[in-house]
């Protein structure tokens, strides 16, 4: 091979690299390992972690993932393919993405879904960019202090560097967006769009009646951010009259994996379709009249529009949309509703029993919530979480020294809940 290349050594292939730039030493890294050693290494590392019964949520939920999902997503034909640039040999990928888009459209009540967002935080940031771009001269974006703080942080980063004015409307004593203030800020004008959460960070379902009309009256757009699974039971973005639905789809069959990878979803009305970032699959026919699928609306994308693209997104979060598609196929409408019902009933049972211990109270007792709620912990959040951890329980997510956010899914049994209640009762 070297002879064919006209060089007499591998180094000869780098004759064009100036000497001063060449690495004159070996990497300072460990020696190579056999598979067994690699496995042993990670087994040892894994033992330094503690997997606990999980009552933590805050955007990422421990749901049951049927075994078939991992069997399908491990198929090499799916796993080792790239973005389906050649539709003739990529119908598998294109086909499941089309199914995913169809399912997300049904869940969100929107016309169109992309397949490209990394997670919920960046999906919200992309929704913000999309709304900003839909106004010829841009405009302010309004959002709520009841959004997930990690989502807000990412939106703030993107807004700061891109030069978007992002205004955060404060929350009320009932843990909800100050809706009167939000509506008056919308009416003040210059607003390109509004992003609100449902349920919000505290698990509370807010009432968005009249919000889409208020937005549309001043030509602003409305985006509603929800964890995907909950859309099976809560009023969807489409039903609220929103223009965009966004959020994290981890709750559709994806493991927690210490935070990633997951999948962000972004759906919109047909009117905004051409402002949508990322990959979209469309149906068409081939020469033989077969129904086939292709990447479509590509002229919006970075590889063609360069600096004029709506977004720089290249990913097509393919494999994660496959998790979601297989999960939703197995669950069906009724299965997904049942998953939510178990979480909701479990959460209300647990909140009731925790409050009965006398060491904690429901922080927002008059606000309707789904499968997640905030407790005010009289002995302090740290004391509670430490006592729970001693029992092998992740007791929730700390909001501050006195407040903890607790989530329930179909995964925690009544026994698990009663153990957590015993922990709460033991606090003084």
């Amino acid at each position, binding site marked *: 091979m070297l002879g064919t290349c006209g060089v007499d050594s591998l180094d000869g292939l780098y004759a064009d690299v100036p000497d001063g730039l060449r690495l004159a030493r070996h990497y300072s890294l460990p020696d190579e390992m056999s598979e067994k050693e690699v496995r042993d290494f990670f087994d040892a590392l894994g033992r330094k972690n503690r997997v606990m019964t999980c009552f933590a949520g805050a955007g990422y939920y421990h749901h049951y993932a049927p075994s078939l999902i991992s069997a399908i997503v491990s198929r090499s034909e799916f796993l080792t393919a790239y973005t389906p640039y050649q539709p003739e040999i990529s119908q598998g990928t294109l086909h499941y993405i089309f199914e995913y888009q169809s399912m997300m459209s049904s869940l969100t009540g929107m016309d169109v879904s992309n397949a490209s967002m990394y997670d919920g935080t960046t999906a919200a940031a992309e929704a913000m960019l999309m709304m900003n771009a839909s106004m010829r001269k841009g405009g302010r974006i309004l959002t709520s202090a009841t959004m997930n703080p990690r989502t807000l942080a990412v939106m703030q980063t993107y807004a700061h560097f891109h030069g978007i004015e992002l205004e955060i409307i404060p929350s009320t004593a009932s843990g909800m967006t100050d809706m009167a203030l939000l509506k008056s800020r919308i009416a003040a004008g210059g607003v390109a769009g509004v992003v609100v959460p449902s349920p919000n960070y505290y698990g509370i379902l807010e009432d968005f009646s009249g919000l889409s009309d208020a937005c549309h009256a001043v030509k602003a757009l409305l985006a509603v951010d929800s964890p995907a699974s909950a859309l099976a039971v809560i009023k969807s973005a489409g039903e609220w009259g929103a223009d965009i639905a966004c959020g994290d789809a981890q709750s559709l069959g994806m493991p927690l994996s210490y935070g990633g990878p997951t999948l962000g979803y972004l759906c919109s009305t047909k009117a905004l379709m051409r402002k949508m970032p990322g990959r979209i699959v469309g149906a068409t026919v081939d020469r033989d009249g077969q129904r086939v699928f292709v990447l479509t609306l590509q*002229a919006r994308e970075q590889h063609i529009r360069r600096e004029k693209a709506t977004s720089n997104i290249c990913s097509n979060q393919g494999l994660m949309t496959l998790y979601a598609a297989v999960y939703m196929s197995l669950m069906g409408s009724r299965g997904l509703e049942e998953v939510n019902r178990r979480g909701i009933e479990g959460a209300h049972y647990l909140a009731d029993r925790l409050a009965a211990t006398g060491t904690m109270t429901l922080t927002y007792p008059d606000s309707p919530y789904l499968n997640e709620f905030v407790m005010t912990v009289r002995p302090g959040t740290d004391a509670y979480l430490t006592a729970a951890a001693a029992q092998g329980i992740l007791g929730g997510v700390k909001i501050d020294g006195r407040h903890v956010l607790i989530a329930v899914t179909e995964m925690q049994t009544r026994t698990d809940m009663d153990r957590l209640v015993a922990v709460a009762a033991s606090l003084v």
Partner: protein
Amino acid sequence: MSNTYYLQSHEYARIDGNIAYVGITKYAAGQLGNVVYVDMPEEGDDVAFGEEFGAIESVKAASDLFSPVTGTVIEPNTALVDNPRLVNEDPEANWIIKVELTEPLNLEELLTEEQYKELIK
């Protein structure tokens, strides 16, 4: 003397009194290939000479549209929304926007038909 003027970026303006019909040239339509979408302003929007007023897309290309005139859009050609292929069929008959001029033509910078023909030779 022709009543049509051009930009180097291949937009034309056909002038009829105080009205300009703005579209892309046959040459540009040929270069772009099958047009799949035309992004155009709404009635009442202002356009300015040399500034972007929309975009035109084919399957694998997209280009911005620049206005050869300054004025107010009195009619976007909505027939192109459902049938963008019209641009390929006859780009001159199928203008993109109809503009009421608010400023005189920028004759110093606009190309005449002869100059444009020279450009694309």
